[in-house]
């Protein structure tokens, strides 16, 4: 996946254009099907022992669960109907996203990346490949690397053309 260009629409919002190969498309939609990977209950509000802060812990978990539900709908819409954002032009696949879509896609991909890393046992990045000892770990490792690949393309677009 490669960022190609960014344009302003009639409302002045930035539209980001990416080129994808067929393989990119399969991998993007395939990795998104894994969403969500993180456990919303694992979020921690504080490392300290303040009673007042600890009382806010359930609210944080509830907010993360709600966010996952909301993003799951968006991810499912894209996976079920990729033609809403992807189209073929001159033999290449074009993905067009607005700033809001870029943001939730980036978050969803990071959920997959971080969640897969946690399931690998939270290794240092240099040790991650060594953590692959069975088929399940291989899936987590691949999902972590693939989501990172797509995240990098989105981050490059944001850095070249802020919303």
């Amino acid at each position, binding site marked *: 996946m490669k960022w190609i260009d960014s344009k302003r629409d009639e409302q002045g919002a930035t539209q980001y254009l990416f080129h994808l190969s067929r393989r990119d498309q399969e991998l993007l939609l395939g990795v998104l099907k894994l969403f969500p990977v993180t456990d919303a209950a694992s979020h921690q509000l*504080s490392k300290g022992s303040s009673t007042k802060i600890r009382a806010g812990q359930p609210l944080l978990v509830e907010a993360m669960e709600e966010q996952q539900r909301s993003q799951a709908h968006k991810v499912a819409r894209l996976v079920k109907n990729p033609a809403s954002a992807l189209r073929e032009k001159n033999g290449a696949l074009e993905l067009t996203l607005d700033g809001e879509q870029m943001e939730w896609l980036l978050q969803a991909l990071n959920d997959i990346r*971080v969640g897969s890393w946690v399931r690998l046992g939270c290794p240092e990045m240099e040790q991650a490949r060594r953590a692959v000892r069975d088929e399940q770990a291989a899936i987590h490792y691949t999902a972590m690397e693939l989501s990172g690949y797509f995240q990098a393309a989105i981050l490059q677009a944001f850095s070249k053309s802020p919303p």
Partner: protein
Amino acid sequence: MSETETVEPIVLPDKEAQEKEKSAPKDTREPGYLVICWNDPVNFMDYVAHVFRVVFGWPEAKARKHMLQVHEQGKSLLVRETFEKAEHYVHQLQAYHLHATMEKDE
């Protein structure tokens, strides 16, 4: 009729308001909570800087400065805020899967 002398009105202190403010929890009045971002090996450096820009509205240079602090020093104190605002920011940062917490400034 004699000329009246102009005297500035005396404003008595609003004791009720003062008492109310004193009785309000200190937390609601003072930015006594720290929002800290901790290092992890999985989030990309560019991603962390991007999240700081989005969540706090910081310019690129400030976002990168804090991102580098996280990377090189293991953590960065991002903001000192009231309880509610600190909690809001931690929710925002964790929605992006950054390792962020709020701690009481003691």
